[in-house]
C-alpha cells in the first residue's frame, strides 16, 4: 500500500502538526508574561463618559425650578413602561408632576426618555452600580429622582424659551418678538 510518494507526505504532516502545537504553546507562553489587561473594578473605577446611560435623574433649571412639565412624553417613549406620573398645575400656572415614579427594576437604560424630553428634565447619569436587597427599593419617587443641578446642560432653562410666561410679561422669551397690539395696527 505505502509507496514512496506517501512517505514524505506523512513526515511533512507530522512536522506541520508539531510546529502548530509548538506555535500555540509559544503564543500562550508569551501571554504569560504580559501585564494583565484587567481593571480591578472596586479598587479602580474607570471614569465613565458623561453620556453613559445609567441611573435616571430629574434636573432643575438654573433658577432652581423643576424642569419637568409632566408632559408624559418620557412615559410614552419608555419601551418597558417603567415611568409613571400624574400632572397638575402649580400655583404659578405652570404644569408640573404631582408625583413622578421610575421603577428601576424594570428600566433597561435605553435612554429613549431622555431623547423624548422637551425640557431636558429627565437625564441619564453615568452612575450604573446601585444594588438593593429588595426589589421594591428600586421604585424611585420624585424626591429620590430630583437633584439640585442642571445635569448635562446646566445653563438651559426651558421657560426662558417657551411655555407659560408666569409672573413675566409676554414677549420676554429668548428670540420672541414683542406681542403685537392688534387694535393699534395701522398702515
Amino acid at each position, binding site marked *: 500500500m505505502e509507496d514512496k510518494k506517501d512517505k514524505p507526505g506523512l513526515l511533512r504532516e507530522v512536522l506541520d502538526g508539531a510546529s502548530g502545537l509548538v506555535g500555540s504553546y509559544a503564543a500562550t507562553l508569551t501571554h504569560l508574561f504580559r501585564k494583565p489587561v484587567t481593571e*480591578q473594578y472596586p479598587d479602580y473605577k474607570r471614569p465613565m463618559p458623561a453620556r453613559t446611560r445609567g441611573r435616571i435623574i430629574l434636573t432643575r433649571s438654573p433658577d432652581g425650578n423643576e424642569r419637568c412639565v409632566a408632559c408624559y412624553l418620557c412615559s410614552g417613549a419608555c419601551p418597558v413602561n417603567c415611568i409613571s406620573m400624574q400632572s397638575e398645575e402649580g400655583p404659578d400656572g405652570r404644569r408640573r408632576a404631582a408625583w413622578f415614579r421610575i421603577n428601576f427594576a424594570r428600566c433597561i437604560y435605553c435612554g429613549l426618555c431622555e431623547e423624548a424630553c422637551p425640557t431636558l428634565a429627565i437625564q441619564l447619569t453615568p452612575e450604573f452600580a446601585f444594588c438593593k436587597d429588595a426589589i421594591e427599593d428600586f421604585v424611585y419617587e420624585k424626591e429620590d429622582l430630583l437633584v439640585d443641578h442642571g445635569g448635562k446642560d446646566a445653563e438651559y432653562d426651558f421657560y426662558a424659551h417657551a411655555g407659560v410666561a408666569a409672573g413675566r410679561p409676554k414677549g420676554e422669551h429668548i428670540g420672541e418678538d414683542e406681542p403685537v397690539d392688534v387694535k393699534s395696527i395701522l398702515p
Partner: protein
Amino acid sequence: MTDILLGILVMLVRMAVVLAVVFGLAAYMILVERKLLGRFQVRYGPNRVGLFGLLQPIADGLKMLLKEDIVPDGVDRRIFLVAPAIVAGAALFAFAVVPFGPTFTLFGRPVPQVITDTDVGLLLIFGLSSLAVYGVALGGWTSDNKYSLLGGVRGAAQMISYELALGLALVPVAMTAHSLNLTDIVNAQARLPFAIAQPVAFLIFIISSLAETNRIPFDLPEAENELQAGFHTEYSGMRFALFFVGEYVNMILLGSVTAIFFLGGWHGPFLPPILWFGLKVLAVPVFLIWTRASLPRLRYDQLMALGWKCLVPLGLANILVTGALLAAGL
C-alpha cells in the same frame, strides 16, 4: 503486641500525612490552575479572597459544602450518590503505592516513604486508573439526562481506548527497569531518566494520560459547548465538588506517576530528594494547565483515530524496538 500497634500507628500517620498533603495540593491546584489560566489569557484570576486570593479554595469548599445536594427525579439513587466517590476514591487510593522518596532511617528503624511498597505497583496504579471509568460512566448513566449519558458513554469509550496506549507506553519502562515495583523503577533512573531514554514512550504516556484524566484537549466527556457539563451536569454541592477534587487529585497522581516512570523520581542534583520529587510532581500539572490554555478540543473521531491508529501502533513498535535493543544488550 506493641510492635504491631506501633506498626499500625506508623501506617495510620503515613496515610494521614499523604491524604492531607494530597488534598491540600488538590485544593490549591485549583487555585493555581485558575491563576495560571488567567495569566495565560492576560487577566489576573481570583485575587479577592485573602492575600493574592490564597483563601479562595477554602471559600469555594465552604460554599460547596453548604449548597443543597440535589438528587434529580428519575435517577438511580444509589448509583447516583456513589459515582463521585468512585472517581475521587480511585485516585486517592492509587497514592498508596506512590513512593515519595528513598527509605531513610528514623530511631534506628528504616522508614520507607511509601505506604505500601509492593511488587505490582505499576499494575495497581494502572488498575486503579481504569476503575475511575466507573465513576464517569455510572455518573453519566444514572443522571437520567441525555447530555450526561452522552458524556458518560464518551468517557467510558475514551478511557478504555487510551488505557491501552497508556499500558503500552509503560511496558518499555518495566522492560528497561526489570521490575514493576515503583521504587525499583525510580532507582533504575538514577543516571538517566526514562523521559530521555524512552522519548516515544514518554510522548505516548503524556498524551494518553491527558486523555485518561479527561483534560483539555481530550475533555470530551464534559465538553461544555456540546454537553453542558457532560457526566456531572446533574451534580451539585459536595458531590460535584467530589468530582472536581477527583479530577485535581488525578492531576497530582498523574504528576507523581510521570515523575516516577519518566522523570527520574526523587533523583536530582543539589536539592534534597523530596524537594526534587515535589518539583517534578508539580511540573506536570503546570504543563497540563499550559496545555489547557494552548490547545483546542479534539473532535470525537479525531480522538479515536489518534488513540487507535496512531498511539497504539506507535506503542507496539516502541516495545518491539526496546525489546530488540535489550536483547542486543544495549
